[in-house]
């Protein structure tokens, strides 16, 4: 009997050690600098609040850490969409002015492989910028480093929260350099194919409520033709 107990205790210890090795393995999912940050091309930035209560609408299955906003919004409880989030939010330019509206539809990805440090979400953005046009962004996001650096410390903390400064890129594909694919739909973006990156800056996170203070950012690489068209339009 005592051998069985020793074996079971050993197995529990082994599983716990494996979990800790996963969390503190510095080689997992450290993707370094964003390819757009070192690109010579012109990029434009759209900022949005990553706090669900600041969104125009945020909804999910209702059982997630992040609560739907407004509280009476219809929830996504049906089996095929239970692992899906939908959000509509204001997109702001680099100066903080309203630039347009963004809709993000995202679902947990079946390609998630925690052993490889891939906590993946498949998501698309639809962004409409009045007087400029519409954009469709498709991407895979990897939340592993966010969960490791923010979510896990918040869970370990006695008050279930985390405060600090975390900056990171969430986009991990489908572009070869870990970028999102951006397609222009109308206006000056019509017919264009571009690349983009979604990043997140978090200052406060609660294991019970999700992000308390966090800003998301979409960086989109602009082709020369758009810069020329917008410069000409501004000159007129």
């Amino acid at each position: 009997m005592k051998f069985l107990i020793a074996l079971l205790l050993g197995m529990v210890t082994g599983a716990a050690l494996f979990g800790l090795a996963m969390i503190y393995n510095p080689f997992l999912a450290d993707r370094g600098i964003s390819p757009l940050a070192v690109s010579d091309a012109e990029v434009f930035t759209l900022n949005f609040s990553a706090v669900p209560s600041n969104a125009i609408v945020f909804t999910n299955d209702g059982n997630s850490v992040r609560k739907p906003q407004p509280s009476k919004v219809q929830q996504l409880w049906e089996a095929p969409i239970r692992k899906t989030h939908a959000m509509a939010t204001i997109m702001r330019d680099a100066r903080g002015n309203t630039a347009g509206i963004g809709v993000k539809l995202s679902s947990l990805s079946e390609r998630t492989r925690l052993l490889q440090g891939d906590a993946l979400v498949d998501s698309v953005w639809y962004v409409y910028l009045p007087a400029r046009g519409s954009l469709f962004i498709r991407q895979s996001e990897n939340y592993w480093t966010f969960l490791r650096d923010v979510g896990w410390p918040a869970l370990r903390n006695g008050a279930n929260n985390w405060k600090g400064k975390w900056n990171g890129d969430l986009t991990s594909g489908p572009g070869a350099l870990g970028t999102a694919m951006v397609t222009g739909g109308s206006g000056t973006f019509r017919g264009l194919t571009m690349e983009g990156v979604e990043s997140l800056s978090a200052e406060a996170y609660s294991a019970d409520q999700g992000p308390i203070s966090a800003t998301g950012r979409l960086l989109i690489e602009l082709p020369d033709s758009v810069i020329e068209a917008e410069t000409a339009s501004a000159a007129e």
Partner: protein
Amino acid sequence: MLKTFIVGIVLGLAGAAAGLYLYPVVDQHREASIVSVAPNGGNVESFHVNVPMDRIMVGAPGQKKPLPAGLDWPSDEVLQDVRVELFKIRNERDTVVGVASRTAAKDGSDDVIDWVLHLPARGSVYVNMRPEALQGGYRQGELRAGSREFAQLRGGMTERWIRSSSGEEDAPIGRIELVTAFVGVQEET
């Protein structure tokens, strides 16, 4: 006993690794697709939105009864001509299979009507509609981009409003019918 404990640790490490490798962390629920082949080629699939029950959001300026209740649509001037709606979308069996957004905006002299359909187990499509309605109340659009299953496809989609003829009290007042017709893009050799 120490040896047994160490063997337990090794088993625990191996078991956790094997479990994580073999057990799917995310397993999306799949509904069988109902696809038919069009006579001139392409796969045709029909989706619909039951109105009002499948409406998640109707975002537009100056609404007396916003949906959902408590919605605070931004008062910024740049968004005065923008209307964004979020829906659940259903397949032909009337089962919810995804979520969708429809954006309608007036941009100078141009009207913009864009749909994004997101089917979690399959991927997403972005369709740019022609603003003018055709005979029979149809509006036609072109697939601009897709993700995953839809990434290598081209084709179009129609939207049409169909008023319900049912007299039942809890029946929808109508539905938005979306019919996609996609065909694979031939890869260049």
